[in-house]
């Protein structure tokens, strides 16, 4: 490895502009004539719109236009869709209710848009939005998915009777039931996975610019996948055909999944720009973000895990109810099905698994992928259950896991996935050693002397990244393929531009992708630029989520680099009158192996563009593109250990140590990987101990609509993390990468809850384990 190549801790190239406040985000974009949008939003969780009176608003200072959903319908703007078809177990397709970008008949959650004001200033737009008078006929609301399935509850969409979107299953029910009936021991639990608000630092924003001369639209937006945004807005929402629509996602300040989806606001900005004749910008404020960004998780599950007399797991049966909110967000349907139930085997050899999943409408914000997307829910369920089983069986939690580990690969689980490589024992060993697991009893006794309750807990997670072979996801209902594209352009002076369909919004692609090129051609990374996020520059791409940019995005770059290398070698061989197969690339030069003949990289590039002396029949130039379709998912895995101390008087939990031992396959930049793990664990700690979206169950009002009530993790909530890697290369992609973006958020919550429940001696504790809940549970255990 060179100092800038694969495996080097290269400082992030992009950080200079971010740290100096020179990032260029959507809200920083300003164009001549631009005006501001403010949305009128429903204050009710469920209501019929009787009338909308915009006359007073239209007369307010600075107002350009006040637009409503009926006009949008008349202009042919389509419904928002969910792009992954799931069929219920009876064979019927999922039941998708209509989602209008601006509601004109019914509002279904607090925050549903009912009108938009365009005005000269943001203040004027907001003033006028308050002057829009909407007459509502308020209807009863339901916020809990479990309750929404009961008889007599408010009904959200006529298309989905009983609020049921689908009733889906996977695995072998009969085999699972038979194994449970024959089991020596069955552990049963009810497991709630709490609803989270994604909270990227940069809120969502959109700038719609309609050019009437060209009949062309430009949309700046906070997107993790601008090409998917263009595709969907073009193909389904009838905003404009793809050749008339340019989508740019410039610097984006975090997404965590919430910026995958196409929301009403960007569609409205584009449409309103055409209708009102001015560019229209909207930027969410923080409370709007809490109200309208797609939330994550929100599952209620029951589980049965069966064991034989030797404590081997024989079956797992899961029944999950997933809250989808008021509408089906873009990929919502895939999250509690193929991203969740397919991971229920965990790291264990489980002969029979059956999962049933019901997806349910409620009067709440939409729910879709959020860092980990389905895999945190699966991991939490499996790892809480295994831990509970160990307690019930009176065996060590490490031993119970160890004796059930999958040890030979490839391994076919009963729930679709084929694990390609891994060494679960290695991570378990490394984590236990790093945490000084064996020294815990002494530390517990010492803490007890101080009146503190100390606990330790682990979690052995597996996840699936690099989503995914297009044909496979297509057969499972995906509306898109999940390949990635890349183009490598070598300029005449030898500098290199890499165009990628991946999108960086915190991941550091400008650094890691450049390291890949530096490694291959021995050029300095400063001579490599990464271009992404603009549909006019990059032809097509599927974007960044599901930890796919390394495993899929970089694999596409590797394919394009292969082609560039082949042509560069041909040119160099021609220039040096050598055989192509004798050319090697070293330290920025092309050499004839075993001789002192050499052509510097830039000279080869210049030769490609002067075209004065190229091999016969070769096209001038040096630019190659590639599409890469993965052969399989990748399977990062690891073991996390949390050690905590609970103050029984207040229920306050302090994390004493947090150990992460991960297998991510090969690593391009260890510093960036560690950063991803740190951030992921911080979010996992958030889910386990701090964060939770609360709606008032009667009125459907969002009670956690600001940081006064929604507990974001802060630096002093977190310990220093002890991170290590036990990597087994992924056999299915050229770089052997598995992915690291979500593992921290996936693996950590069960480790923490296992530790806290161990400390207080009460297994009945739900996330987030706030001081009040821990205090109550500790007290219940003591009494």
């Amino acid at each position: 490895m060179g100092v800038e190549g694969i495996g080097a801790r290269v400082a992030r190239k992009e950080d200079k502009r971010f740290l100096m406040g020179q990032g260029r985000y959507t809200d920083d974009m300003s164009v001549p004539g631009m005006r501001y949008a403010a949305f009128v939003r429903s204050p009710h969780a469920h209501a019929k719109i009787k009338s909308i009176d915009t006359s007073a608003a239209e007369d307010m200072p600075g107002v350009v236009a006040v637009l409503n959903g009926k006009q949008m319908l008349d202009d042919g703007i389509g419904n928002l869709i969910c792009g992954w078809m799931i069929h219920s177990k009876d064979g019927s397709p999922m039941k998708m209710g209509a989602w209008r970008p601006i509601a004109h008949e019914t509002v279904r959650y607090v925050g549903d848009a009912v009108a938009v004001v365009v005005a000269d200033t943001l203040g004027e737009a907001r003033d006028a939005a308050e002057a829009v008078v909407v007459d509502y006929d308020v209807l009863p609301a339901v916020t809990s998915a479990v309750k929404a399935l009961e008889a007599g509850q408010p009904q959200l969409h006529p298309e989905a009777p009983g609020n049921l979107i689908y009733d889906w299953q996977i695995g072998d029910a009969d085999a699972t039931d038979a194994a449970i009936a024959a089991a020596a021991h069955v552990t049963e639990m009810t497991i709630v996975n709490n609803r989270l608000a994604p909270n990227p630092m940069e809120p969502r924003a959109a700038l719609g610019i309609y050019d009437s001369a060209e009949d062309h639209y430009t949309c700046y937006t906070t997107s993790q996948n601008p090409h998917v945004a263009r595709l969907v807005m073009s193909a389904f929402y009838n905003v404009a055909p793809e050749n008339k629509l340019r989508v740019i996602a410039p610097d984006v300040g975090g997404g965590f999944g919430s910026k995958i989806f196409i929301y009403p606001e960007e569609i409205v900005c584009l449409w309103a720009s055409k209708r009102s004749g001015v560019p229209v910008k909207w930027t969410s404020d923080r409370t709007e973000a809490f109200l309208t960004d797609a939330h994550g998780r929100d599952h209620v599950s029951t589980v049965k895990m069966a064991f034989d007399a030797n404590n081997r797991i024989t079956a797992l049966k899961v029944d999950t109810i997933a809250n989808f909110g008021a509408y089906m967000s873009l990929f919502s349907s895939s999250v509690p099905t193929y991203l969740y139930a397919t991971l229920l085997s965990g790291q264990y050899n489980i002969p029979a698994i059956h999962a049933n999943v019901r997806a349910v409408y409620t009067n709440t914000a939409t729910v879709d992928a959020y860092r980990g997307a389905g895999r945190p829910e699966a991991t939490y369920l499996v790892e809480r259950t295994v831990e509970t089983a160990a307690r019930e069986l009176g065996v060590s939690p490490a031993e119970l896991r160890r004796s059930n580990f999958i040890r030979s690969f490839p391994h076919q689980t009963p729930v679709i996935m084929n694990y390609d490589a891994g060494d679960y024992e290695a991570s378990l060993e490394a984590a236990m050693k790093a945490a000084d697991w064996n020294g815990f009893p002494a530390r517990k006794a010492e803490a007890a002397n101080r009146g503190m309750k100390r606990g330790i807990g682990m979690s052995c997670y597996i996840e699936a990244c690099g989503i995914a072979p297009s044909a496979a996801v297509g057969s499972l209902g995906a509306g898109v393929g999940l390949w990635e594209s890349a183009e490598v352009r070598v300029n005449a002076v030898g500098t290199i531009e890499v165009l990628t369909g991946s999108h960086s919004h915190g991941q550091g692609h400008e650094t890691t992708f450049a390291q890949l090129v530096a490694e291959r051609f021995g050029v300095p990374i400063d001579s490599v630029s990464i271009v992404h996020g603009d549909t006019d520059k990059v032809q097509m791409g599927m974007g960044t989520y599901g930890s796919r940019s390394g495993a899929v995005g970089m694999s596409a770059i590797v394919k394009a680099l292969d082609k560039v290398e082949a042509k560069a070698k041909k040119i160099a061989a021609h220039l040096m009158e050598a055989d192509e197969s004798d050319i090697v690339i070293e330290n920025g030069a092309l050499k004839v192996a075993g001789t002192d003949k050499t052509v510097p990289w830039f000279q080869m590039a210049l030769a490609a563009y002067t075209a004065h002396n190229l091999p016969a029949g070769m096209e001038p130039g040096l630019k190659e593109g590639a599409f890469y379709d993965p052969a399989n998912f990748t399977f990062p895995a690891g073991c996390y250990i949390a050690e905590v101390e609970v103050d029984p008087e207040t229920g306050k939990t302090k994390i004493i140590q947090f150990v992460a031992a991960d297998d991510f396959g090969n690593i391009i930049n260890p510093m960036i990987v560690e950063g991803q793990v740190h951030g992921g664990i911080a979010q996992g700690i958030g889910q386990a101990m701090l964060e939770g979206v609360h709606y008032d169950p009667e009125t459907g009002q969002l009670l956690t609509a600001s940081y006064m009530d929604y507990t974001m993790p802060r630096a002093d909530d977190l310990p220093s993390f002890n991170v290590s890697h036990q990597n087994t290369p992924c056999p299915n992609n050229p770089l052997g990468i598995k992915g690291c973006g979500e593992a921290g958020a996936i693996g950590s919550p069960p480790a923490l809850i296992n530790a806290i429940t161990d400390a207080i001696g009460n297994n009945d504790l739900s996330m987030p384990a706030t001081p009040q809940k821990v205090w109550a549970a500790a007290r219940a255990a003591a009494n």
Partner: protein
Amino acid sequence: MYATNYHRASSIADAVTLQSSSDEAKYVSGGMTLIPTMKQRLAAPSDLVDLRHVGELKGISVNGSRVRIGAGTTHAEVATSAELKAACPAICHLASHIGDPHVRHMGTIGGSIANNDPAADYPSAMLALGATIVTNAREILADDFFTGLFETALEDGEIVVAVTFDAPAKAGYAKFPNPASRYAMTGVFVAKASDGSARVAVTGAGSDGVFRHAGLEQALSANWSADATAGVDVDASNLLSDIHGSADYRANLVKVMAKRAVAAA
């Protein structure tokens, strides 16, 4: 934020004149409560009268045992004042745990008590220290000043000029922060006067705002020790319940924080 007019007052008299010349004017000190409220469009004063440049509101002084803190003194100034540390370190400790450094360098003691947020820290100190709130018109005992949630005895246009109190023989403050806002979920200020009598005030927990706890005061007046709180009954029926803490949980916190406040005193 709605449009508003900004005025900078140079003296208390100037401030009163500016405030009274428009019907919806409000004083602004640190702006750490008022400005966020305006940004959320929950407050819409037509005029803001800035008190930050009024010299008469500034400064900390200790004369013998009498402590005076000007209303315009920031939390950071209280937290780091050597004079206060000698006279009543508990109030420095309290101020050092309000919000974050930005808030502490902007927010003021006058703004905090005039606002009387039921989860704010200072009101408990004022009640437990038996402080006097000095305004431009009169002196008000803390016992009469805090009248309910975000309610005080201040008349429209009345300015808090300073707070004064006798340095206690001992005092301590223990706060259990709300995990989200870091305001007090329950904060207990205990003070022992030179005559040995104890006053105990609780913030963050009461459904009517800050309050004194008679049972804890009796117990600590009889025996100033952390153990003395153990036998006291804290009735949960007048305490707040919300998503962060039930009334029962807060009742427990009142006892635990009282114990820790005495231990810290």
